[in-house]
Each structure stands twice: as structure tokens, then as C-alpha cells.
């Protein structure tokens, strides 16, 4: 097979594609190699179309792929144009530095190449040095200098610097200065090249790293500039969960005799139905009522919980949301009619930032909406249970826990802080089915996944 010569650039490209965020499996890698055998490397557009067909499988990935392909082959083009020019190298005669230097391309010293201003050979040498130094493993912005240094070392920079010193001592300071300038220029080029490669190989990594960090960051401590990224993350997580659980339910949305399987099962008895096979019973999607404390520090958390739940629309049957601080109001309408960011701001304006009164809010809920709580309803309460020493009204919680399917209490405070000061957490806890700490995206995801899993 003649895969060998083609496989190296392809392998590198696959690595670049992966780090750009395209998921490329080994099987797809093999497909790409097979496709290239059929198509060849001749035509750039055909090559791009082909690889795009084999590797990128969603509109997002197609977009990433286009970017990555252009970036990768722009770099490749530089290298190639240099290769074709490399015969220039042959024409250049040695001019006094011969034999003194080491390393570099074409067996000539770096200083010599610099003095000849032989850009083609320099670029080739830099490409080689970069490959030797494993540039495709670069991951972080902070590694730029390290790699630039490594590349220059491999090109023989030390020797060139020594050559420069020798020149200066030998009384040719003009040439030495010129050499020094060119070495400086070379440094810039190396840094440039490292940055190009960083863009190519590490973009996905830094993104991923940042996302991982955000997922486990306390939501109350988030900086404003991370909010947009968080929203994207929440939507992606919710979409994944919804896709998983919406499907299982759809499959089971049947409740009839399975005639075909019944007949088949009873073939042995001449088609007389001794054994009946039933299609699976339909399963209810969870109905959720969310009560969010929007006072003080819990507000940030409430925003993300609501965002999460509303992104899950298709996996939930019915969702009603309430916001409370001193008293409680229903906010479902606002959340459904406005984009979530604006809705949250409106809610905060209407009710937020007061001091919370849990007893009062629970009483409001019981008066207005208790009749909507059925044995299929899950009530989620998000709050720190700090009622500023007002009556916690645990009697209402008790009644609710009898009516509802279950009550989940999410508390953004650490467990150790529960019950200290004015926290009524332990007074409410007996009436809840689940009480859990919830202050990062990861916690949120787990809670919501459990909610959906139990219903399925």
C-alpha cells in the first residue's frame, strides 16, 4: 500500500482538526487516508471538499473544519514555496564563515545563512527545527517562549551568537551589527511561527481547559465577562440531557397490544395467542415547580438554575417557576416570553434584593398555587434557608411534602454552614426528599440529570 508517504501530513492535519474541536475517530482517519488515495493531493478544492465530507459531520464542525483547513494549509504553503526555492541555496557560495558554524539547514551555519539573507533556507531550517522540537504538542499560551527558544537552539542560534562575538573581536563590527540585527529578526519570525502553530494546535485545548474550570467554579463568584460563555455551556449541557431523556420517553410513548410480536411469539401454537406481548407503557415527563430565592447571593445561582430548566423544555412536561424574597410571585410568564437574560433582570427588579422571608413566601405559595401541586409534581426549592429569624413555617413544608411527588432543596452554601446563624436548613430538611449543596454548574447538571432519570 502506498499510504506511508501520505500519512504523515494527514496525521498532522488530523491532530490539528481534533484540537480545533472536530471529533475525528480512528475509523474516520482511516477513511480520510483511503479517500486521499482515490483523490490524491493535486487539487486543493477537491482535497478540502473530500476531507470535509469524511471528517466534519455537523454544520458547526464544517465551519471549524474550513477554518482549520485554511490555517493549516497556509502554513503548509509557506513551507512548500520554500522547498521549491531551495535550489537557490546551491547558488550561494560560502563567504568566510564556512566550516565555523554547526546545525541549520543544508549543512551551512546559521550565521552564514543570515548574512546571505537566504530566506528560503532559513524558512526550511526553521520548519525542520520546529518539527524536531515537537511543536504540535504545544498547548498553552505560556509555552510560546519555551518553544521559540527550542526552535532557535535547534537552528544553531548559540553558534551564530558566538560567530557574532568572534566577528566583533576580529575587528569587523559593521558586519557583526548587521548579523545581530538579523538574529533579532529571526527571533521575531520564530515567535510568529510558534503563535501560528499555537493557533492551529492548541485553540481547542485552551477552550476546553477554560470550560472545565468554569464548570467547577462557584457560580456566585463568576466574573461578568464569563457570563456569556457560561450561557453557552449551560445550553450545551441542557441540550445533551434533553436529547438523552427526551428520546427514552418518546420510545415508550405507546400502550397497545403489540400484534406483530404477539403473533410471532405464538407461532408455536398455530397463531392462537396464548401469550400476549404489550408495547411499553408511556412514561410521564416530570412536572416541575421551581421556587427560587432571588435575594442576595442566591440570585446568581437562581439565574443558572432557571436557565438550565428552561433550556430543558422538551424533556419536561410542565414547568412553573416562582421567585421569592420577602414574598413570592409566579414568574413563568416572564420567563417564557422574554429571553432569559432580560427576564432575569425584570424579575430581580420586581422582587429581588430584599431580605428573604421564607415563612411568608411559603404561605404565599400555599395560598395561590397549592392546588396545582399533584402527586406527579416535583418541587425544587433553591435557597440558603436563611429567613432572617422569621417564622420558618415548617408546617407548610410538611403539607407540601404530602402532596408533591418529591421536594428537592438546593442550597448554595457549604454543608458546614447549614444550621449556623439564622439558617433554618435543618428545620426544613426532614420534609425534603433530597437536600444537596449546589453551587457549580457540575452540581446543577447532576441534580437535573437525577431529576430526569428518576422520571424515566
Amino acid at each position, binding site marked *: 500500500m502506498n499510504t506511508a508517504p501520505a500519512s504523515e501530513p494527514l496525521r498532522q492535519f488530523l491532530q490539528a482538526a481534533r484540537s480545533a474541536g472536530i471529533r475525528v475517530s480512528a475509523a474516520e482517519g482511516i477513511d480520510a487516508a483511503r479517500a486521499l488515495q482515490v*483523490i490524491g493531493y493535486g487539487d486543493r478544492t477537491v482535497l478540502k471538499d473530500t476531507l470535509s465530507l469524511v471528517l466534519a*459531520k455537523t*454544520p458547526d464542525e464544517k465551519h471549524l473544519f474550513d477554518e482549520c483547513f485554511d490555517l493549516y494549509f497556509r502554513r503548509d504553503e509557506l513551507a512548500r514555496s520554500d522547498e521549491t526555492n531551495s535550489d537557490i541555496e546551491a547558488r550561494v557560495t560560502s563567504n568566510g564563515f564556512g566550516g565555523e558554524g554547526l546545525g541549520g539547514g543544508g549543512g551551512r551555519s546559521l550565521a552564514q545563512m543570515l548574512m546571505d539573507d537566504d530566506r528560503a533556507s532559513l524558512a526550511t531550517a526553521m520548519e525542520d527545527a520546529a518539527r524536531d522540537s515537537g511543536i504540535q504538542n504545544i498547548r498553552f499560551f505560556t509555552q510560546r517562549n519555551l518553544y521559540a527558544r527550542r526552535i532557535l537552539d535547534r537552528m544553531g542560534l548559540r553558534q551564530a551568537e558566538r560567530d557574532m562575538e568572534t566577528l566583533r573581536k576580529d575587528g569587523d563590527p559593521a558586519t557583526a551589527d548587521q548579523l545581530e540585527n538579523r538574529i533579532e529578526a529571526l527571533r521575531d519570525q520564530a515567535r510568529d511561527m510558534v503563535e501560528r502553530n499555537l493557533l492551529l494546535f492548541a485553540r481547542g485545548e485552551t477552550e476546553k481547559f477554560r470550560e472545565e474550570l468554569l464548570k467547577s467554579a462557584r457560580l456566585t463568584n463568576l466574573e461578568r465577562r464569563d457570563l456569556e460563555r457560561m450561557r453557552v455551556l449551560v445550553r450545551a449541557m441542557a441540550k445533551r440531557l434533553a436529547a438523552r431523556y427526551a428520546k427514552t420517553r418518546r420510545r415508550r410513548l405507546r400502550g397497545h397490544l403489540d400484534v406483530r410480536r404477539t403473533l410471532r411469539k405464538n407461532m408455536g401454537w398455530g397463531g392462537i395467542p396464548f401469550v400476549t406481548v404489550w408495547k411499553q407503557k408511556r412514561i410521564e415527563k416530570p412536572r416541575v415547580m421551581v421556587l427560587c430565592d432571588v435575594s442576595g447571593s442566591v440570585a446568581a445561582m437562581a439565574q443558572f438554575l432557571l436557565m438550565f430548566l428552561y433550556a430543558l423544555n422538551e424533556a419536561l412536561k410542565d414547568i412553573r417557576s416562582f421567585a421569592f424574597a420577602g414574598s413570592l410571585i409566579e414568574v413563568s410568564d416572564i420567563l417564557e416570553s422574554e429571553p432569559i437574560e432580560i427576564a432575569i433582570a425584570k424579575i430581580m427588579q420586581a422582587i429581588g434584593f430584599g431580605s428573604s422571608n421564607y415563612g411568608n413566601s411559603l404561605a404565599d405559595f400555599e395560598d395561590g398555587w397549592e392546588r396545582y401541586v399533584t402527586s406527579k409534581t416535583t418541587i425544587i426549592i433553591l435557597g440558603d434557608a436563611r429567613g432572617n429569624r422569621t417564622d420558618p413555617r415548617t408546617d407548610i413544608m410538611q403539607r407540601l411534602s404530602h402532596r408533591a411527588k418529591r421536594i428537592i432543596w438546593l442550597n448554595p452554601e457549604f454543608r458546614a454552614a447549614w444550621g449556623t446563624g439564622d439558617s433554618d436548613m435543618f428545620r426544613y430538611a426532614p420534609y425534603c426528599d433530597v437536600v444537596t449543596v449546589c453551587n457549580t454548574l457540575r452540581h446543577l447538571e447532576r441534580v437535573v440529570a437525577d431529576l430526569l432519570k428518576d422520571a424515566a
Partner: protein
Amino acid sequence: MPDAGVAPAGTAACKFGSIDGVEQSLASVGYIPSRQIATAVYLAQHLEKPILVEGPAGVGKTELAKSVATCLELPLIRMQCYEGLDEAKALYEWKYGKQLLYTQILKDKIGDVLGSEETLPSALDKLHQFGDVFFSQQFLEPRPLLRALQQPGGAVLLIDEIDKSDQEFEAFLLEILSDYQVTIPEIGSIHAIRTPIVLLTSNSTRDLGDALKRRCLHLHIGFPDAKLEGRIIQSRVPGIETHLRRELVAFVQQLRSLDLKKVPSISETIDWARVLVLLHAATLDAELVQDTLNVLLKFEADIEVAKKQIVTLTQKARQEAGLPI
């Protein structure tokens, strides 16, 4: 694993010998492909891989399969997917009625056949000598997928709107997509006589599984640019005047940039072109456009949005088509 380097023999190879060849022969049956579409068809044939075609409704996904079939003179076997589609409707079904009849006949004849045997074991031995016909090819009712594998000369299999089917059905397709074989528990695996060309289409109403995508070439067909759309109209509606065609294409291209619920796709452009030819229109004017807009736009709200801009849009279209305003 089939050897990728060797192209399948016969007319198929002649017609689809190169990407240009694909482009030309598809054009000859009235389907004007973009370069990318031609590349996909070429690769599908040479790598023996299915193509998953995604894109908005009406850009010619299904049409592509039909044209490939016409081109290669192969039968087109079409399977429309929907929620609840299962293997009995997609792959095979036992002919239950016939099987029941068979048991009835067997009941009547069993005495004649086994009557001469003295003991039960010897009767059983005799029984074993008969072939096990009950679950055999004779009682098998092939459905589209199995039919596609059984075509002696090969076939083009179109699995339409795969996103409408259930997740399980997708999993069940994997065997046929990667190995071109299906397994029937009572009989065993059935291989394709000639590898069919498989096209799956999807409108992306839901995300397809990774396993399915991995086995396919993924082709995304978007809206064509003005040049390609002009060629498509020319091929589909040959009676249309050149300058009207240019005007019409420029108009539709602009319409797509508006904020609409459902932007017109190629099929709508073709319909509109036909309507204009029927009405003997020589050029686009605001009144004519207003009267025929419902061919292009299918939502009341969209028509309202577009109506407000008809005059500017037609003027711009004239400009782009190089006509005096």
C-alpha cells in the same frame, strides 16, 4: 474490507470515472451539482460508503438520489422514515398467512408422510429429513432494505428523512451501512449481491447518533449561489428567457437574506420560474411579484415581511441582472 482502489466494473465506473464525469453525467439527467456534491458522489462510489445528506428542505436532497439512479440506470429503492418505523417495515417480514396455511397443510399431510413409521423416534428421524422450510426465504417478505441488497445489478437505496425515525432504528441501520449485510435470526446473514449506493437524507430535526455519522460521508447542501441557481433553473425550466432568469434568481437570492421563517429554496425557485413562464411574463415588476409571492413563501407572516420590500427588491434584482431600471 473491500479494496478501495478498484472501481466497480460496468457502466457505473465509466460514467463516474472522475469527478468531472460525475458532474457531467448528473447534469445530463437534469441535476446540476455543485463541485462538492459531485465529489461526494464520486467518493461514495469509490469508497463504497453511504452519503448522509443534510440541508434545508427543498435543496434537492432526494432529487440527488433519483438523479444518481437515473444516471447509473439502477433501480431506485426508496424508504421513507417516520416515527415508529421498525424492522418489519424496513427490512423483512414473515408471511404469516402463508405460514399458517403451511401448518394447516402440514397437519393434513402429516399422517400420509409419517403413517408408515412404527415408533416415535423413527417418525422424528423421518421428519428431520424434510428441510426446515418454515423460516426460510420462501416465507420471507423482503422490505426496502432487503430488496436493495437482493438486486442482482446493484441499486440506489434512498433512506429518506432518517431524522424522523427513532433512535433504535438508527442503530439497526448500522450493520447495513457498514457491511452491506443484514442478519435475520432464523436464517443468518444476507450479503449484498452488488454493493448498493446508499443515500440518507436528514432535515436535522434531531441530532443523529455519532455511530451513524461515523459510517457515512457527510454532505451538507446549502442554498446555491446565483450562478449555480441560474444553471439549475436553466436546466429545469428551459423555456424561460435569459434576462428573466437572471432577474428571478437575483430576486430570490435577496429574499433569502431577509429575516424569514422559511426562506425559499431551490424547489420554490423552480416552481416560481414555471409560474412566470406560464403567465408569459417578460420581466419582473412589483405587481406580478406581489401576485405570485405565495409560490415562493409559504407563511403568511413571511409574505407580509416581503411585501413591504417588493419594490426595492425588484429594482435591485433588475440592477444585478444588468437591466435598465
